[in-house]
C-alpha cells in the first residue's frame, strides 16, 4: 500500500539556552497509509505538536528519516521544503488560523495566491466550491473576525484542501469549540476523507472523537506507545 508519510527514527531536540539540549521526541517510527484517518493523542507536552510540525515540514527533525508523498526530505533546502509543503500538505491549526485582513473566500484562495500562476476565475471557482462543501457559502465575503469558532474552522478546512493535498495535518482543530461545533468540524473532516481520499492526521484531546478515527496513535513522553504500525 502507498504511504503518504513515512517516519523512521525521528528525534527532536530543542536547544534551551546554550549547552543544555532537551530531547522531546525519542525515535519515532510511524507509517501513514494513503487515505488513513488517524488520531494522534497523548498528554499535554508529550510532543504531538512538535511531531506534527516535523511531518508538515515546518520544523526539522534532529535525526531520523522523513518521506512525504513519496519524496525523501533529506537534504532539501528551505525553498524546496516550502514548495513540497505547499503542494502536498494542508494544515488546520487550533483557533485563529485565518488571516483577519482577508475575507473567508480570500483566506481559502490564499494557498493558490501564494503559489502564483492560477487564473482568477479558477481560484474563485475552487474556493467557492470548497466553501459550499463545508457549508460556508453564505459567509464567503465575511470578514473572518465575524465568524464563530466552528465557522472559522470550517473555512480553515476548506483552505487546507485548496491545493488538493495528499495529507492534512490538524493540530487540535476542535480544541476550543463546544461539543456540537466540534462534532460538526470533525464530521466535515471525516466526510472529506471519505469523499476525496486524502489522509488526515488529527491531534485531539477528546477520546470520544479519537474513537471515531480508523486509527489511534498515542504519544507519551516523546515515544509512540500505541498505533505505530
Amino acid at each position: 500500500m502507498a504511504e503518504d508519510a513515512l517516519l523512521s527514527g525521528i528525534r527532536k531536540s530543542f536547544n534551551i539556552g546554550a549547552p543544555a539540549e532537551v530531547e522531546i521526541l525519542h525515535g519515532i517510527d510511524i507509517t501513514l497509509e494513503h487515505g488513513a484517518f488517524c488520531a494522534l493523542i497523548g498528554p499535554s507536552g508529550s510532543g504531538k505538536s512538535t511531531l506534527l510540525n516535523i511531518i508538515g515540514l515546518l520544523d526539522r527533525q534532529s535525526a531520523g528519516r522523513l518521506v512525504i508523498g513519496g519524496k525523501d526530505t533529506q537534504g532539501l533546502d528551505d525553498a524546496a521544503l516550502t514548495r513540497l509543503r505547499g503542494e502536498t500538505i494542508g494544515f488546520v491549526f487550533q483557533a485563529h488560523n485565518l488571516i483577519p485582513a482577508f475575507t473567508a473566500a480570500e483566506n481559502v484562495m490564499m494557498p493558490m495566491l501564494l503559489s502564483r500562476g492560477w487564473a482568477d476565475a479558477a481560484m474563485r471557482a475552487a474556493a467557492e466550491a470548497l466553501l459550499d462543501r463545508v457549508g460556508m457559502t453564505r459567509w464567503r465575503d465575511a470578514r473572518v473576525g465575524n465568524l464563530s469558532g466552528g465557522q472559522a474552522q470550517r473555512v480553515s478546512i476548506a483552505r487546507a484542501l485548496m491545493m488538493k493535498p495528499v495529507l492534512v495535518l490538524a493540530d487540535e482543530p476542535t480544541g476550543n469549540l463546544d461539543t456540537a461545533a466540534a462534532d460538526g468540524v470533525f464530521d466535515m473532516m471525516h466526510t472529506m476523507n471519505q469523499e476525496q481520499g486524502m489522509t488526515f492526521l488529527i491531534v485531539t484531546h477528546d477520546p470520544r472523537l479519537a474513537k471515531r478515527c480508523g486509527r489511534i496513535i498515542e504519544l507519551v513522553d516523546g515515544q509512540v506507545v500505541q498505533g505505530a504500525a
Partner: protein
Amino acid sequence: MIRWLPFEGIAALRFMREGWIQTIFILVGVSLGVAVTVFETSILTGVQANFLKRVLTSQAHIVLLPPDEVARPLHDGPGIVEDATLQRPNQRLRSIDQWQTIRATVASTPGVRVVASVASGAAMAVRGDATASISIIGAEPEDYFRIVRVPDYIVAGTWRLTSDDILIGTDLATLLGVTVGDRLFVTGRSPTPRALTITAIFDLGSKGANLRTTFVAFRTGQSLLNLVGGVTSLEIAVADAFAAETIAQDLSARTGVRADSWIKTNAQFFTAVQAQNTSNIVISSAVALSVAFGVASVLVVSVVQRGREIGILRAMGARRGQVLLVFLLQGGVLGFLGAVLGSLIGAGLLLVWHDQVRQTDGTELFPYVLDPLLIGGTLAFASVVGLLAGMAPAMQAARLDPAVAIRG
C-alpha cells in the same frame, strides 16, 4: 479582491489597512517631514532664482575697465628699496586705451552675446534750488539695454534716449520734485551744464540705485564727462552667465585690461547660496533619517504582532522571499504615500507663503514654482527610503521560524 496585484502587494495593502491607526500615524509623520523638505527646497530655489534673475538683468556679466593705476616701490638698484611705503593713487576717470580694437576682439569672442560701450561717471543734477549728486551712465540703448534691462524697470513714461534725454530713478524724481517731461540741468566734468529732458522714470528695486543712477545717450555721457572719443568701460553680456568668470579671465589675458565678472563681484552671493544649499541638504537628510526610523519602528511592531499570521502563511506555502516582500512593500508604500501627501501639503504651504510673504516693495519674494524634478525626485527618494527602512523588519519577518511563530 484586488487582482491586478500579486499576493505580496495585496497582503501589504491589506495589512496596512487593517492596522490603519498605525498607518495613519506614520503617514502623518512621513508627510510632515516631506512637506517641510519640499517647502524649504522650493522657497530656496525660488528665492535664489529670483535673485539671480535680478542680478543678471540689472548688471553686466563682465565689465572691462582700464587697469588700476598703481604706485611702484622706488628702487635704488637691484634689490634695494628706497621707499617701500606705497600709497594707492587716486583713480582718475580714464578711458580704456584702444577701446575700439578691444571691443572688436570682445565681440568676436565665442560666448559673448552683447558688448556695449559705456561712458560713466559722477555728475550733479540741478532743478531749481534742489541739487543731487548722481552717477550718469552714457550708453547706446540698443546694446546696453540688452544687458541691463532698464526698460523692464520703467514705472513712468516711455523711454527714449536722444542726445538731450535722461532716464532717472524714482527716488531721484521725488528728491528733485520732477516728473516725466521735466528738464534737469546736469553738470559733469565739463564745465557747461546741459539741459536734459526726463523721458522715463525707473525703479531698479534698490533705493541707492533709484537715487543715484541715471541713463543718458552714449555721446551725451562722453561730452558731459569730457571723454569725447573715449569709454570708461565696456560692458558685456554672455550667453551662459555661469561661464562669465572663465571668459573674463580669457579676455583680460588677451586684451590687458581689467575684466570683472559678476561671479567675482557677487562672490558673497555664491557663498550664501552654497551655505543655504548645504544647510538644506543637512535638514533634508535629517528628515529622511527620521522618516526611515519612523517607518522601520512601525514595521518592527507590525512584524511582532503578526508573527502567528506569518507562520500560518509559511505553512500555506509562502516562501521567505514572499514574506520579505510583503513587509518591504509596506515600507515603500508608506514612503510613497507619505511623499504624495507631503508634496501636496508642501505645495499648499508654499502657496500660502507665496501670497502672504512679500518683499518690501510688494513684489513676490520668490516665484511660485513647484519643480516637477523636485517632486518626482522626492517621491522616488521617499519610496526608496521607505523600502530601505522596511529592510530590517522584513528580514526579521522572513527569518521567523514558522513552527515557533505558529506556537506563538
